[in-house]
């Protein structure tokens, strides 16, 4: 089994190095399939040799299941272009790492595996019932039973997923599930994309997946192994949903130690559950005798019975018995001792088997117990020896302790790993952190960052761990993408001290800022800067450059959050200058870094009123790393802020289209709302106010508050206050409008537009309350270089009885040149009113007709409504009575804020037929609670609170 050598490794539990392979030896990207990771360095064997499918002595079956063959998510052949991402083939989980294909491989039963026909026969029920559960204690033989059964059905598409880490979020779970389906050859359409947020998944994904699987004529068998690690109730609920809506296209097999949270009673009552539990998994004396024979042990029936009684038929216990007896001089005697002993079964047997190994092997087993998965190289790193490869191959052949999970990667059986760790702690007290540290170093060298971080944290070596993160330019992942929460949790164990270099301080700053703690983050960032100065390595060294780069990123964020555009410009200049000091491959691997940086810059410029500069930076941010989950948040935010620029320039139609595009992007990548930027909703609310759709505006504004804490900058705060104020004005609540903007938004630099708009709101409130002079007194606050503000000022002058001054102001500012309809319509109305005062009826008619036509085209109602009653005689009856409709370029109605799912649409349609919730449930064959859930989601998406509103809104949108 020497083929296990390979350039694959070191591999670990969760990670292999990134794709986008950059070969340091050739300086080029590696197109050859099979050349796994050139970064493993000079001792990596020849490319191609490792490929277990071509290897001369590849294992016969199982671990290299043919189904994982050409589509196996190995980084090599699929390596995407740096910075780009293909949702179809991109073998990424939301962590941005290539999937470790061993998670999707059906485990290979060992040579001594005993097929038990009664269990295999029972398991055939999995083909008839939607849900199958194999539920038994650790070491009961669940996994191998299902794996062997699956191997016996080569005609079935079997998607296998071994869940890997405790406490993983819904996003990770679904990303892996999708990858498992892809691996077994189920094609997924483009609208089913991997979630970009590791912890949250929108409703759309399970719904779309259910529709896809439900349409299959041949079922997919989906096996979720070690499902006990999945503890999140929402995952169970989503799986339940998926299963109910995709039967008969999906057969789900759960392999678990604990009772899953799915409503098993319902499946059981409906005869839709195949269940194999501990009692059935237990070996009978006859089976135990056959197992012993497979190990070359011929025992008397009495001895077999004794062992079965002592172990209660527990598979792991029997296997350990066999291993211990196999190597003992007198097997029967060995088993008798075991029978007589009163120790806990696994404890005793494992100690027996362990002590029969030679010292080197014992040491290796103890030490690798801290690793999740490992190749010989990583095993050598923790043992400090060079012979792991042969030892692991031998142990795997003997089996029980060491399982080969394919591609030269091994793992310990979880039960034995746990007990071995107990022995490690006892025999080598204090060694564990050192082992984690060695593993972390080895993995870091191999470029397996996430695994290196995990071990670094376990070693409590924060200097190393933080430096690994910062040197990899991965600091941006604190803010965006699926790893954000994982990093936050990992480094929350770091505490306020620990590590005296700049990196730990920088990580602390990032953690604070990502939670919206500006002051705390700024303090730590300053400290990190001071330490950088002190610790500076030789100029140009990658590490030092990466630290400065990290500082620049956080500087830009601090600048953005505190409204300090100059500082943001400095930070971005610094980052641009450092770019050349860092390997291009590193930058390519982290598109989110510059996406965030540019988004920060654009937003800071936007605050300062540098609209052209903001547009430039935001456009670049929105185009960085297209499609990559890691850049989803900054891209969305940048796009939404471009829409905000459109609003400020008076282009509501354009703003709306852009905001919807941004929302669609978030929906596609499954970012749930609290983690998204929230600016789109603000923009849509502003557009709704312009269209006098005040209920919709209110609903949007209420939800716009749920934005990512690190993106709550002055632009967002001021924008929200101003839109709220405009909404109040439209509702005739001038007092509330003033209160909305009155507190102001704290920022280092003054924002001309925010200040001007605030003054205009105050002036409008003053006018509405009959205080034109107060309103006019506010005008000096209003900047004269921004069309929207100028028109607002002209309107105040007009109301204050100075029509000539108002027109002069408009003429001087040449408003009509670049501004959008919201501005030009108002400008025309100001001129019309002035002409009205001057008694020039034909000019009034011309101007009003122009304004009305333009307003109509954009669906604007607000400018006409706020013009006052003088306009009425000039309006032709038709447009006055007909509600101006929003533009419908394609002839189809505008979509709701988020698309309704098919099921939600079904429910809303039935609502329109005045059916009760119970009637709808009966009609759709679902529970009342399911209907309520759909209703709740539909209300949210339609931004309504009641049935009647939902029906009305759905009609408006043409959904009925």
């Amino acid at each position, binding site marked *: 089994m020497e083929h296990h050598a390979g350039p694959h490794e070191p591999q670990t539990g969760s990670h292999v190095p990134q794709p986008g392979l950059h070969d340091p030896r050739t300086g080029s990207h590696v197109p050859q399939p099979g050349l796994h990771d050139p970064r493993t360095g000079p001792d990596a064997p020849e490319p191609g040799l490792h490929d277990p499918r071509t290897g001369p002595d590849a294992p016969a079956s199982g671990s290299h299941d043919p189904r994982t063959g050409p589509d196996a998510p190995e980084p090599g052949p699929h390596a995407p272009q740096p910075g780009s991402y293909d949702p179809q083939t991109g073998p990424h989980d939301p962590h941005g790492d290539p999937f470790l294909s061993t998670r999707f491989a059906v485990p290979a039963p060992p040579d001594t595996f005993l097929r038990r026909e009664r269990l295999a026969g029972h398991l055939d029920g999995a083909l008839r019932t939607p849900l199958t559960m194999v539920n038994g204690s650790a070491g009961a033989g669940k996994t191998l039973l299902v794996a062997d059964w699956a191997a016996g059905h080569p005609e079935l598409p079997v998607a296998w997923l071994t869940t890997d880490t405790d406490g993983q979020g819904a996003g990770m779970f679904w990303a892996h599930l999708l990858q498992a389906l892809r691996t077994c050859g189920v094609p997924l359409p483009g609208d089913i994309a991997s979630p970009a947020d590791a912890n949250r998944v929108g409703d759309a994904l399970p719904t779309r997946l259910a529709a896809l699987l439900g349409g299959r004529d041949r079922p997919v068998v989906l096996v979720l192994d070690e499902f006990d690690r999945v503890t999140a109730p929402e995952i169970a609920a989503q799986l339940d949903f998926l299963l109910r809506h995709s039967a008969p296209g999906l057969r789900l097999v759960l392999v678990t*130690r604990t009772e899953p949270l799915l409503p098993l009673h319902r499946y059981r009552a409906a005869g839709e559950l195949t269940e194999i539990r501990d009692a059935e998994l237990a070996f009978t004396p006859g089976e135990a005798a056959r197992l012993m024979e497979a190990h070359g042990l011929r025992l008397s029936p009495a001895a077999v019975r004794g062992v079965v009684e002592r172990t209660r038929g527990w598979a792991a216990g029997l296997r350990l018995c066999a291993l211990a007896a196999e190597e003992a001089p007198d097997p029967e005697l060995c088993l008798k001792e075991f029978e007589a002993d009163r*120790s806990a079964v696994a404890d005793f047997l494992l100690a027996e088997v362990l002590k029969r190994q030679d010292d080197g092997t014992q040491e290796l087993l103890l030490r690798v117990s801290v690793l999740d998965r490992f190749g010989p190289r990583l095993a050598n790193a923790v043992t400090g020896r060079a012979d792991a490869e042969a030892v692991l191959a031998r142990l795997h052949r003997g089996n029980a302790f060491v399982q080969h999970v394919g591609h030269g990667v091994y793992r310990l059986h979880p039960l034995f790993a746990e007990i071995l760790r107990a022995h490690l702690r006892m025999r080598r007290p204090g060694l564990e952190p050192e082992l984690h540290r060695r593993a972390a170093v080895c993995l870091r060298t191999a470029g397996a960052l996430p695994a290196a971080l995990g071990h670094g944290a376990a070693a409590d070596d924060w200097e190393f761990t933080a430096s690994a993160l910062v040197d990899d330019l991965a600091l941006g992942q604190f803010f965006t993408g699926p790893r954000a929460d994982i990093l936050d949790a990992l480094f929350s164990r770091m505490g306020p001290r620990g590590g005296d270099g700049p990196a730990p301080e920088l990580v602390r700053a990032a953690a604070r800022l990502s939670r919206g703690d500006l002051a705390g983050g700024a303090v730590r960032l300053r400290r990190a800067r001071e330490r950088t100065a002190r610790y500076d390595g030789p100029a140009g060294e990658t590490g030092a450059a990466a630290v400065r780069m990290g500082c620049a990123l956080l500087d830009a964020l601090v600048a953005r959050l505190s409204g300090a555009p100059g500082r943001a410009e400095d930070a971005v200049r610094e980052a641009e200058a450092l770019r050349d000091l860092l390997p291009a491959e590193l930058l390519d691997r982290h598109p989110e870094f510059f996406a965030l940086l540019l988004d920060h810059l654009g937003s800071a410029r936007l605050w300062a009123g540098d609209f052209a500069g903001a547009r430039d930076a935001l456009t670049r941010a929105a185009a960085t790393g297209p499609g990559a989950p890691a850049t989803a948040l900054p891209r969305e935010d940048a796009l939404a802020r471009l829409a905000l620029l459109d609003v400020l320039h008076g282009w509501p139609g354009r703003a709306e289209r852009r905001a919807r595009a941004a929302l669609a992007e978030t929906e596609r990548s499954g970012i749930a709302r609290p983690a998204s930027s929230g600016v789109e909703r603000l923009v849509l609310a502003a557009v709704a106010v312009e269209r006098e759709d005040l209920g919709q505006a209110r609903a949007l504004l209420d939800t716009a508050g749920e934005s990512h804490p690190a993106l709550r900058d002055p632009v967002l705060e001021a924008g929200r206050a101003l839109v709220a104020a405009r909404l109040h004005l439209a509702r005739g609540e001038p007092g509330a409008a003033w209160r909305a903007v009155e507190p102001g938004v704290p920022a280092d630099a003054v924002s001309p537009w925010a200040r001007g708009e605030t003054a205009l709101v105050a002036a409008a409130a003053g006018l509405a309350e009959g205080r034109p002079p107060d309103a006019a007194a506010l005008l000096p606050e209003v900047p004269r270089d921004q069309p929207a503000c100028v028109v607002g000022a002209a309107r105040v002058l007009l109301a204050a009885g100075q029509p000539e001054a108002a027109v002069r102001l408009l003429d001087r500012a040449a408003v009509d040149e670049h501004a959008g309809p919201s501005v030009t319509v108002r400008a025309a109305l100001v001129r019309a009113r002035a002409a009205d005062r001057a008694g020039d009826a034909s000019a009034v008619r011309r101007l009003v007709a122009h304004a009305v036509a333009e307003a109509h085209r954009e669906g604007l109602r607000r400018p006409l409504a706020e013009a006052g009653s003088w306009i009425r005689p000039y309006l032709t009856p038709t447009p006055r009575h007909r509600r101006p409709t929003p533009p419908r370029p394609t002839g189809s109605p505008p979509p709701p804020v988020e698309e309704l799912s098919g099921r939600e649409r079904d429910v809303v349609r039935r609502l329109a037929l005045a059916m009760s919730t119970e009637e709808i449930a009966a009609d759709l064959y679902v529970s009342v609670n399911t209907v309520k859930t759909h209703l709740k989601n539909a209300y949210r998406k339609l931004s309504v609170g009641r049935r009647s509103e939902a029906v009305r809104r759905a009609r408006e949108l043409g959904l009925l």
Partner: protein
Amino acid sequence: MRYEIRVEGQLSEPLIRMFPELDHVTMAGQTLLFGQVVDEAHLYGLLARCQSLGLRILELRQAPR
């Protein structure tokens, strides 16, 4: 809350050390782990620890104060 967890078999020293927060008594073919349990989460954690070590729980009870 004080709890007693009775598991089958006598536990070896390494396994006992996996429960540093609990005291233990070894008796004929059984081990009694007992001590202060901080909260529910801790309790479930202890049960999971037993499970992952392959221990069979015979009895779990809250001890009288």
